[in-house]
């Protein structure tokens, strides 16, 4: 308060007695109280720096507390629009159609790497492969989040902005449309002859009677009517039809919001998971069993549907001749599943584009490969490894696959093998290659290592890669094994047997509770759009002026949007009907005209 008194003393020639704050020291906060001034202020704010207004109001610490209730202006105090202009400007930019389009374009652009590069969420094995084949480039791409595009922060930034932009655009529009759908038709114009469609004729009826009959006829055709106010001495009726257009538009916008909300629901409450299964294996839908689990923001691991799946067998068929030789013709994963522990197991054939629906989630078959089976005995002769080990296809045309075998419990030292599996072995210039994706002549080529696998340190490592930094190679050259064959490591270090192979499938489990609402909203949006395109909003006005013989009736028509045309015919028919109603039992007058402007 002392500051205020000081400022008052500093401006002794204040012309407003009784007002504690002279208006001249607060040019903005008081002037802005009137709407036109504020409008001007907001439209010219870009010149008005962000600090400008704040600096002005800062001269008076709390202007609103000093507002005098006796002020003749009589307006309540308002918070000075400090920095509000910039916020509003930013909001307008964000919610503008242009920004939304740019963001939509960016979203599409951002999705491109998601379809060009392998994605962690869909095919982690392919990502692994990419890292091996592009050791220099892959880490950089990984830093940019390009292996998990749809979870990358920059992608989230784009869609959150787009979301905000769309919501900020659609919500106000919805209110406007709701208002437009409720507005009654306007007063009838004075000169109906100037309207695009008009007609006039004589009637033997008095003007008020003629208008009443016209109103009844139009009302019967489900036009929305407006009559002159009480005490108005003119005779007219305004009628409007086609409000469904606005309703359709409203439905479209609301449904669009619904789509956004559905997507948000899917993102918050849905989840995605991946699981690699080997023939004969089974898994329960729980975090512990899943290879990858990507929960929505509001999903925890205990929300997972408690189903389980057993992979009975998998078969892939390939074209054996022609141009598409080696291309797959069909995949078939024979599974059995139970929707909850203890529930009876049901068989199902899982195929590409034939996902399993269980507990309102979907299980897709997204990949397959070979898992050669090995047993390893260590130096003491004890079997320390017996497992079908999934190998990752390096060449999806021939299914030449890479993998490693880690034997952490071999003694005296851990053993490791880097291997290549070929389903149909051929030798090309002495190099092992695969000629065909089907297992016609399966073989593995292995390279043996001993030493420290690095796995006992507790740091999780890829099961598809062997860290050889603390290991030494024990076989000079790769050795080749066919099913049933063994190789004894030099120096009595142990023996590895290639006992056979199984096939594996990778499954994607997705739960998207927003999918059905999104579909329903999408359909509603389409229906609303069709309504707004197909329904015409049209107005018909009828005026009657009294004459000696009765009245002159003028009818005017206006299609606000002549979508599809055809209003002329409707108007002509309407005029004919009105005329007939107005001249029942009377001869039609000679002076008549109908015009099309």
């Amino acid at each position, binding site marked *: 308060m002392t500051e205020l008194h000081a400022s008052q003393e500093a401006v002794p020639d204040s012309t407003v007695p009784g007002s504690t704050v002279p208006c001249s020291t607060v040019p903005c906060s008081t002037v802005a109280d009137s709407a036109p001034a504020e409008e001007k202020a907001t439209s010219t704010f870009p010149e008005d720096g962000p600090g400008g207004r704040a600096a002005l109001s800062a001269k008076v610490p709390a202007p609103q507390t000093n507002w005098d209730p006796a002020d003749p202006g009589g307006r309540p105090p308002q918070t000075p629009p400090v920095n509000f202009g910039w916020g509003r400007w930013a909001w307008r930019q964000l919610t503008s159609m242009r920004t939304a389009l740019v963001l939509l374009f960016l979203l599409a652009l951002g999705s491109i790497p998601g379809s060009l590069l392998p994605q962690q969420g869909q095919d982690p094995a392919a990502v692994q492969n990419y890292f091996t084949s592009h050791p220099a480039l892959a880490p950089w791409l990984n830093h940019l989040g390009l292996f998990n595009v749809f979870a990358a922060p920059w992608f989230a930034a784009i869609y959150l902005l787009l979301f905000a932009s769309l*919501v900020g655009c659609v919500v106000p529009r919805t209110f406007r449309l709701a208002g437009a759908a409720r507005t009654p038709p306007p007063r009838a114009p004075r000169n109906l002859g100037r309207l695009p469609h008009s007609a006039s004729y004589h009637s033997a009826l008095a003007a008020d009677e003629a208008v009443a009959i016209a109103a009844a006829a139009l009302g019967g055709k489900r036009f929305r009517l407006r009559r002159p106010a009480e005490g108005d001495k003119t005779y007219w009726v305004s009628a409007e039809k086609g409000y469904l257009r606005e309703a359709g538009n409203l439905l479209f916008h609301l449904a669009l919001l619904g789509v956004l909300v559905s997507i948000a629901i899917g993102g918050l409450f849905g989840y995605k998971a991946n699981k690699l299964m080997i023939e004969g294996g089974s*898994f329960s839908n729980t975090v512990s*069993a899943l290879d990858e689990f990507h929960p929505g923001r509001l999903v925890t691991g205990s929300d997972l549907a408690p189903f389980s799946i057993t992979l009975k067998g998998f078969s892939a068929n390939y074209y054996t001749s022609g141009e598409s030789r080696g291309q797959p013709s069909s995949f078939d994963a024979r599974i059995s599943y139970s929707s909850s522990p203890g529930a009876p197991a049901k068989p199902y054939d899982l195929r590409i584009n034939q996902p399993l629906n269980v507990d309102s989630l979907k299980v897709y078959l997204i990949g397959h490969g070979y898992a050669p089976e090995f047993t390893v005995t260590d130096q003491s002769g004890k079997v320390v490894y017996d497992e079908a080990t999934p190998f990752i296809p390096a060449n999806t045309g021939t299914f030449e696959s890479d993998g490693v075998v880690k034997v952490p419990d071999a003694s005296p030292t851990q053993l490791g093998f880097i291997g290549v599996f070929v389903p149909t072995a051929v030798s090309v210039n002495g190099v092992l290659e695969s000629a065909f994706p089907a297992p016609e002549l399966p073989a593995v080529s292995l390279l043996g290592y001993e030493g420290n696998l690095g796995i006992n340190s507790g740091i999780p490592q890829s099961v598809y890669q062997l860290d050889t930094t603390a290991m030494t190679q024990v076989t000079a050259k790769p050795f080749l094994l066919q099913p049933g064959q063994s190789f004894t490591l030099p120096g009595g270090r142990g023996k590895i047997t290639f006992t056979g192979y199984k096939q594996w499938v990778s499954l994607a489990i997705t739960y998207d509770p927003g999918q059905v609402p999104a579909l329903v909203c999408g359909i509603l949006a389409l229906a609303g759009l069709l309504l707004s395109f197909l329904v015409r909003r049209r107005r018909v006005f009828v005026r009657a002026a009294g004459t000696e013989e009765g009245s002159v009736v003028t009818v005017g028509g206006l299609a606000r949007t002549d979508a599809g045309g055809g209003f002329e015919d409707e108007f002509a028919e309407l005029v004919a009907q009105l005329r007939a109603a107005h001249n029942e039992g009377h001869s039609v007058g000679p002076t008549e005209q109908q015009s099309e402007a």
Partner: protein
Amino acid sequence: MPSRLVTTVKGRKRAAVSLAAVAAVLLAGGLWAAQASGGTPNGETYVDGNPSAVLYDTGHRALVPDFSGTTLAGVPLRLATYRGTVVVLNFWGSWCAPCRSEGETLAALSGRYAHAGVSFIGVDENDTPTNAEAFEQGFGIKYPSLNDPSASIAQAVSSAVLISSPPTTLVIDRTGHVAGAIFGTATYSVLNTMISKAMTGKAGA
């Protein structure tokens, strides 16, 4: 449109409504942050301030649903028969690196509490019996492990405490309720603390 000036107040109202709508959306989106950074709910304390080692106060302990299975040695085992003793339930796999780093801890603690009324049970997940037995022999683990390649036990127990990827270790009190949980590698001191706390609790508490 001359109505621009006239509708300022209305426009402001609309702007407020749309702002509110966006705020609601952002709030919903922001919930995850609150969830992620949420502190300890009532009845939970962290051992040594480690958020992956949780102690539950009596009254806030979830009942572990009963389960049964076959051990790697082929012997049937049912959790309910362990009522009245403290049970250390360890989910593991021979392929899992953190499980290998806690192998010695589990072997040592199971030896230490062998005659103190504490039973250790392993649940071997996503593994083969041969590999698992090689692991147990390598680390000198004597207690039984259930063979559960499909992780169905983890699925059942998750209704009490979420069992994530192995390793996860639960300390179950004499009444069959979860007294403590370690999500990740168990260290000797943390697991020892949990076992002692679970043992001091009276039966029926």
